[in-house]
């Protein structure tokens, strides 16, 4: 995957780096500049009256940070928690949010040309939360617009309606 990424790096003029991860059987990727760190899943403190996909909060070096399980929210894969369960800590609009994923695969470079428009259906995520699709080493990678997802009312992580305009 990295070789392909490198090749693309040479050919493309303007390109972005994405972190790809696995949810169930599907490959996803998100803009790497939003990633704060990657860590193992740890015990959370539950929050009363929160939807089931919000697992709770953890202490990230003094910050109380919510943990979201996208597998539950979008009904992909099985929401199991073991030593290999990974949490990607994201920093979106000065807010820190952790998302639970089945695994983190690689960092890929993609240019605008590599991105295909997202399908209207067939993906767990609503298309408004997607940048598009890309083919990386014969895998289809779904590029998630993580900013709009995290700030969406659907996840309900943010109190005010600061939904980001997609694009």
């Amino acid at each position, binding site marked *: 995957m990295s070789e392909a990424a490198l090749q693309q790096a040479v050919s493309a003029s303007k390109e972005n780096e994405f972190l790809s991860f696995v949810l169930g059987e599907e490959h996803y990727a998100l803009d790497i500049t939003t990633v704060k760190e990657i860590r193992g899943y740890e015990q959370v403190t539950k929050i009363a009256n*929160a939807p089931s996909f919000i697992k709770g909060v953890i202490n990230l070096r003094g910050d109380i940070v919510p943990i979201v399980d996208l597998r539950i929210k979008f009904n992909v894969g099985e929401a199991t928690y073991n030593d290999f369960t990974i949490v990607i800590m994201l920093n979106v609009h000065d807010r820190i949010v952790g998302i639970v994923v089945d695994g983190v695969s690689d960092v890929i470079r993609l240019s605008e040309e590599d991105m295909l428009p997202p399908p209207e259906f067939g993906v767990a995520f609503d298309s408004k939360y997607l940048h598009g699709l890309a083919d990386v080493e014969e895998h289809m990678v779904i590029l998630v617009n993580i900013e709009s997802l995290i700030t969406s009312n659907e996840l309900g992580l943010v109190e005010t309606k600061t939904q980001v305009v997609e694009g």
Partner: protein
Amino acid sequence: MTIDVNQFHGVFFDESDEHLQDMEQLLMTLDVDAPDPEELNSIFRAAHSIKGGSGIFGFDALMNLTHVMENLLDKARNQEIQVTSDIVDIFLQTLDVLKDTLSAYKEQTELPQEQIDASIKVLEETLASASGQSVQEAQGSCEQHAEDEVNEIEGFGFFDEDESEAQAQSENSAGDIEGFGLFDDEATSSDAQADAETNRDTSKVDEGFGFFEPENLPVKTEVTQSAIPKQPIVKPVKTKPKAATKEAASIRVDTTKIDAMVNLVGELVITQSMLSNVGQEVEGQVGERLQLAIDELQRNTREIQESVMSMRMLPVNMTFNRFPRVVRDLSSKLGKKVDLVIQGGNTEIDKSLIEKLVDPLTHLVRNSIDHGIESPEKRLEAGKSENGTVILSAEQKGSSIIIGIIDDGAGLNKARILEKATQNGLAVTPDMPDSEIWQLIFQAGFSTAAEVTDVSGRGVGMDVVRRNIESIGGRIEIESSQGEGSAFYIHLPLTLAIVDGMCVSVGDQIFVIPLLNVIESFQPTASQVKTLGNDKVLWIRDQYWPLVSLTQLMQVDDGITEPTKGIVVLLESSKKRYGVLVDSLVGQQQVVIKSLEQHYKKVAGIAGATIMGDGKVAMILDADSVAANCTTIPNEEVSL
């Protein structure tokens, strides 16, 4: 460079604000019949500093006004003109204009030019009318010491020291000494004369310069003298030991830096307790040594935490100091005679609370004067002294601060409150306990139209007062008795960053209940638990208490729901008293409050979160919000 200049502006604005406050305070306490020259000097110096700063930054309007004010003050402190209450009034009005002008410069809005001009005019007129008198007096003193000349020394202005000797000796070798001067402190001839006169016999006695004693040489060594700034002091002998330097004793620090430090120290405390948890597992000789080191670390971290927290603490006087002026203005406007007594002004309280206290306190004090204190005639009729008294008090009780606004006025009018409550459709009976009747005035929209004046209306905005107080984690209590006065007590937490908490366990989770709200905890017997429909209530202390199960409220998986198997903690919030059912008590400890909203959002029933010794997150219960919850959801999730 623009940024740099703006930074200096910020410092100037801050300092000028302080100077204005100081001036106002000094003017308020100034005894018109026998003005303390020392105080007049301080007022003069404050005006002078503002003038200097505004000159540097090109705030001309500010400079012109302070310049005229300074001239008048100069005459006053040299006793060339007699300070009257009229002049004090003029000064106070000028201060108001100065404040407006300063904030206009700060906000970069239009200057109140008309007011400035008017003020300058008034000041100049006062100056002119008083000058005839001043010439005479000045002559009187000049006759004796005609040889004296103006002795103007410009120094660094960092040290406020009394240099009577310099002045006393200056009579023979008066000169104009130019210093390095960022600030100039002017000693005028009449000062020097007054000093010389009073010290004629004693001036040969050593008058030290404090820190610079070895350099205390005769005035001939002009360079030495000029390097040490001087302040004209009228009573040098008395004030001589006051060599301590106020400026050097404090520095300005951005509060965000302190907040960051508070956070970091919080982290340190957590790391330290994690370390001591691990340390307990180490055995043998190494374990012992480790334990010793960890104990040391624990002591040190606690001390760091305390000192960092104390940085945020300020004396409550910062808020109280504005009230002499408020009381003075208001009482003269209303034709009432009111004495303000401030008690416990040195009590320290978190900085963020200080700022948020201003509005509710102002409201309450205005209320007390407007409605509490009667007119002088009525007071005499009622057999009271003509002057009403308003007491502003602050004291620390345990982990809370109690601020009292107490007046000896007419007290709350029970009949009228009840009447109004009935009009508003509230369920009230005349035989309600007084404390409940008084709480009625905090209802939104509870204003008795007959009482509304342009100053305040008891009941107008009282709901806002209570909301403000509650938003900073406090509550308000009222005591009142007809004809004798009323008292409002505001209970506040010491700080917003740390709360004394009772840790309780529910299932596998820990919750923290603020100790402020806890009345007691106990294991209920079967006979104390009554069932009311689907709800459970608790019979204790001769009354029924609603019972809230934390397991159900917080949706914990395997907590205890049977009251007799768990522990009940009785809570008191500003809204309600109720019991909370938990599994067991874990202990009592201070916890650092962390915001949930920063990365998530507000959660009903939760005031915030904290990090426990093992690094896990625990929720801090919000007693008010839980009370509100259990009234809105009576049956399903909460057993009431």
